[in-house]
């Protein structure tokens, strides 16, 4: 094998190996509920999230909340897990599954926040056009 080809192969391995080592087995994450609706009278939602995950590969997995630095819960050598978490929500965030200490996400689910009240009260004008009945 020519020298320059060998160098290219070695370079490709050198670049690819760290990424491969950090790969997290794919997993499926299911969270309910997914939406928090806030308003002037109800600026936050008190919700209990039911979280389930499943993977085809047994590994160490941790469930994370993007708003918190530490994992919520970890499962050593597992392929499935469930977790229930009561939480106050007033901003969108992610639940995500990864390996302990890792930042790579095997799966993530966004918890959305819909704010009905607006800082611009013109957006809540009441119309009375024939086609506008909402």
């Amino acid at each position: 094998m020519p020298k320059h080809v060998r160098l290219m192969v070695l370079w490709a391995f050198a670049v690819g190996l760290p990424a491969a080592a950090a790969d997290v087995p794919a997993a499926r994450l299911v969270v309910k509920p997914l939406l928090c609706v806030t308003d002037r009278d109800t600026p936050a939602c008190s919700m209990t999230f039911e979280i389930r995950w499943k993977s085809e590969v047994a590994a160490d997995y941790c469930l994370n909340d993007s708003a918190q630095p530490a994992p919520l819960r970890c499962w050593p050598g597992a392929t499935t897990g469930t977790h229930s978490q009561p939480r106050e929500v007033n901003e969108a965030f992610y639940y995500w599954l990864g390996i302990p200490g890792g930042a790579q996400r095997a799966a993530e689910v966004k918890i959305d926040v819909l704010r009905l009240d607006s800082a611009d009260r013109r957006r809540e004008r009441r119309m009375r056009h024939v086609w506008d009945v909402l």
Partner: protein
Amino acid sequence: MLFSIMRAHQNLLKIAALWSLAAMACGQAAGTGPAPGTAEKSWRLGAAFGYGQRTNPLIQSDDIPVLVDLDIAWFGKRWFFDNGDLGFTMHEGARSTTSLVARVNSDRVFFAKTNTRYVQLGYAANGVPPAQLINPAPVEPPDRDYAIELGVESLIDGDWGAATLRAFHDVSGTHRGYELAAYYSRRFTTGRFSFEPTVGASYKSDRLNDYYWGVHPDEASIALPEYHAGAGLNFEGGLVANYYFSRNLRFAMSVNYERLSDEIVGSPLTEENHVLAYFSGLAWTF
């Protein structure tokens, strides 16, 4: 007393101008609040698909079906466009927003879907059946034009709910009248469900009512006698409810009942004393 003041509609534009100046002065004194429309997207686009209708109080006219409800709005720091209304915000404060608004009058829409009907007229006297029949006479609701109205609108809110105050005057020379309106609403939200009842009243001047709902001398006939509509007060109540499936998709339902003033109901052009509007369907906000 109140009505006699309101009848001085020639002074309405002056009142509106004073209102505007007061609002601007108030805004300067308060140092104004945060600039409107800066924290959210300027555009608001949405569409609802479902079924609904607005009844039409005009004789020989069809109710107005509503199968699609479009929402097209843009909000800048001062200027805004909201589904046909063009506005300029003069004052934005912690408790109220006051804008100059140009709009198209809503009464005209009832004159868009009319039919000609032929009626056979007879003369009866002393309870005797008609002795003489005349040829069928066409009865056709008269045409009415759109009016461009300019006015002042104040939006006020607090823990008690939200209020809207409006004063509009025709600037297109169509009806030369004015309308004053006040609405109160409050939204309740629980989980993914929200509902918002509204009550309100609108005072329409004699010129406005007479232009749209009067039978003018050149339109009068045996079947459609001349009628002059005076000023009057319309009352209305409504409810809008939404169930949110996601940030973008919701199931929406609304119903609104407006009781027309006696001056409108007394017109030969009206056959119902109210306007009922309802709609339910899926709404998507982009």
